[in-house]
């Protein structure tokens, strides 16, 4: 009689694994509030950010001080007022009013016509308008100063046309992929990457740590279930939820935000699943070292949110960052995913354009999964 070889323990089959996965699903779906966040967050974000965020600068509130009050100034002021870039707030009487207005943050720029403006222009051929911009936001200041300069240039050209200005160079500008400069094309892919990544990491790490805290994890480990099946079962609900989220986001984008997937949906889904798996592995990795749910959550948040937001490239251009950070951004999975989304969804490119990024993402996925699987086993044995 040989012992324990004769123990009749059957190998795990699919049915049992499915039962396990089903239990995991029940955990998640019974928690209404977490469910709200899981689905509500991506939806709310895509809709909000898609519609609300924009880089277009228009209707900037400005103020005009006209100390000359002649025909010329009136013409120019009319031009400014009718421009979609500006919202003429009020007319100023004094310099102190100006400072107060700036300090209150109600205006972004002041345009000042000195006395005798029209007269100077006619008699000396030269006149100067003073423009003061609130440079707290440097980009805004640059852009609206440029807009005013353009208006004046146009006006100058009008004056010039009346005397025949030679040699006009006219740039004809075409905006590609996003002619109306909507925020959505830039933000939606970024938000997709951010939300998928964060939800996957946070939810996975907290769920596993919770079982550790409750003590039910030990029970699982004592059972005949191989570790890898436990992990698959734990990751399964989040994988499915994330894929559902992905589809919701894509549908919302194309229906409401006029941002359809220009390229192959299949390719996009394939790469997205790669990315989701990568994020799930990160969550797994985090859950190993965290002792409490709070630590897991804080770890995911502080540890992942920051690099993801910073180094993905959708909020800040990567090429602006110090070299060390640029280098660092190479190991952030969401950076590569972001590039893939932009190329496939917005520009309609195919696999030949994203094979490099896909390869990198697959590599990261496999590596992270292997590492976390191994460390998971070690930790618990």
């Amino acid at each position: 009689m040989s012992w324990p070889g004769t123990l009749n323990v059957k190998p795990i089959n699919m049915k049992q694994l499915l039962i396990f996965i089903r239990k995991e699903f029940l955990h998640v779906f019974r928690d209404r509030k977490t469910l709200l966040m899981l689905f509500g967050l991506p939806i709310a974000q895509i809709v909000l950010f898609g519609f609300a965020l924009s880089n277009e600068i228009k209707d900037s509130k400005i103020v005009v001080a006209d100390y000359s009050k002649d025909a010329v100034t009136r013409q120019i002021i009319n031009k400014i007022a009718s421009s979609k870039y500006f919202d003429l707030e009020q007319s100023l009487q004094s310099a102190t009013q100006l400072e107060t207005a700036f300090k209150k943050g109600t205006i972004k720029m002041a345009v000042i016509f000195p006395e005798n403006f029209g007269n100077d222009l006619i008699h000396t051929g030269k006149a100067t308008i003073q423009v003061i911009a609130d440079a707290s936001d440097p980009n805004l200041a640059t852009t609206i100063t440029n807009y005013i300069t353009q208006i004046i240039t146009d006006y100058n050209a009008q004056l010039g046309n009346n005397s025949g200005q030679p040699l006009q160079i006219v740039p004809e500008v075409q905006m590609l992929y996003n002619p109306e400069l909507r925020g959505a094309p830039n933000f939606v892919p970024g938000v997709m990457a951010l939300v998928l990544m964060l939800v996957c990491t946070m939810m996975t790490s907290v769920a596993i740590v919770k079982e550790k805290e409750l003590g039910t994890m030990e029970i699982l480990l004592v059972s005949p279930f191989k570790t890898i099946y436990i992990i698959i079962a734990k990751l399964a609900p989040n994988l499915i939820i994330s894929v559902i989220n992905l589809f919701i986001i894509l549908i919302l984008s194309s229906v409401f935000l006029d941002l359809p997937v220009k390229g192959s949906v299949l390719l996009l889904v394939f790469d997205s699943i790669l990315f989701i798996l990568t994020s799930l592995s990160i969550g797994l990795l985090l859950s190993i070292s965290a002792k409490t749910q709070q630590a897991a959550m804080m770890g995911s948040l502080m540890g992942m949110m920051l690099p993801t937001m910073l180094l993905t490239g959708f909020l800040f251009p990567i090429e602006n960052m110090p070299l060390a950070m640029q280098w660092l951004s190479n190991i952030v999975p969401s950076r590569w995913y972001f590039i893939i989304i932009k190329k496939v969804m917005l520009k309609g490119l195919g696999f030949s354009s994203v094979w490099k990024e896909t390869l990198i993402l697959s590599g990261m996925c496999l590596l992270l999964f292997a590492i976390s699987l191994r460390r998971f086993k070690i930790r618990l044995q």
Partner: protein
Amino acid sequence: MSTLSFLLEKEFRQLLRNKQLLRTLLIAPVIQLILLPLAADYSVKNISIAVVDNDHSTFSRKLIAKITASGHFKLTGYTASYNEALSLVEQDKADLALQIPVDFEKGLVRENSQKLYVAIDAIEGTKANLGGAYLSSIVKDFNEDIRVNWQSAPAMAGGATGPQNLNERSSNEGPSSMVSGKGATFQTSTVSGDDAPQISVASSNWYNPFMNFKLYMVPAILVTLVTAMAAMQSAFNIVQEKESGTIEQINVTPIKKHIFIIGKLIPFLVLGIVIFTIGLGVGKLFYGVTPVGNLAVLYASLIVYLFAMLGLGLLISTYSGTQQQAMSLSFFFINIFNMMSGVFSSVDSMPGWAQAIVETFPPSHFIKIMRMVVLKGSGFGDIGYHLAAMALIGLFLNTWAVLNYRKTS
């Protein structure tokens, strides 16, 4: 000692004893405040441009030289055809494509006007805006140069100040201008030709003469850090008591609801102030961000802000049974606040309905206050509206939370 003091004594004891938490709460913001502004540079430099020169004339070469010398652009492609240039844009290797047509120089002289063809990758709005602006400016100045030389007019102080106009530093303003709150750089952008009357624009940049993005971003980033702490931690703390059962013990005592809640708010208020102060120190040390305005104004606003955000955390805790739920709910709000409150994109660019929603977010008000006080030296009178808004929202949230909190179910 009053009930409240006993409560506070316990809370502070617990807080100070939780070394791991303290470390996270104090060190994480510091690290983030140091790293984030490094990356959060919205100034647009090194725009990559692909050029197609079908003319190969003196003019076209001069134009290209002017573009590359401007410091804003990086020539990443010099292609034979416009299609090739466009495919560079497609591959993210160029942000702009410029085509100088055949016979550009000859055509300009003969027909008095010529077109240049520009295509801009407009996915990223800011880059597109500024890229277009810089290029227009360079072309315009180039145009002026040609005109001036062509007319063989007596040499004038060149309009060749070029696109640097947009961001130039002035020679006579220094640190003192920071103190007074305004910096001024004066530039002129065009010089008139002989025949037509010309208006020139003298532009100056106040409050941030060096166009330093850090000044704009650091205050806002500090707000996001304090926000995350306030909302999440307060929610978590109370839910933890729910889960461990100690809250039941409190419910059974004669402690009044509002005393209990105040007892929970105060430690986090103090923590928030500490984190903020550390943040200000880091901002000054690493980025030279010194508030122009009154510190009293800043701290008063901070307290009102924390009042509102802790109220939110409280509210979340009354709706959460488990830590996971508290986490989910607070994460939901924090994410939305982070993206929509004007840190990374301007509120003024949003459609009306979105701006209305953002008005109800305390962070958007505090960020405005921070930027105004730190950069412009705004005072109580100037920020009154925002302060009142935060106070009102805070009152609303806290009242709701107190009403929601039941000692008896």
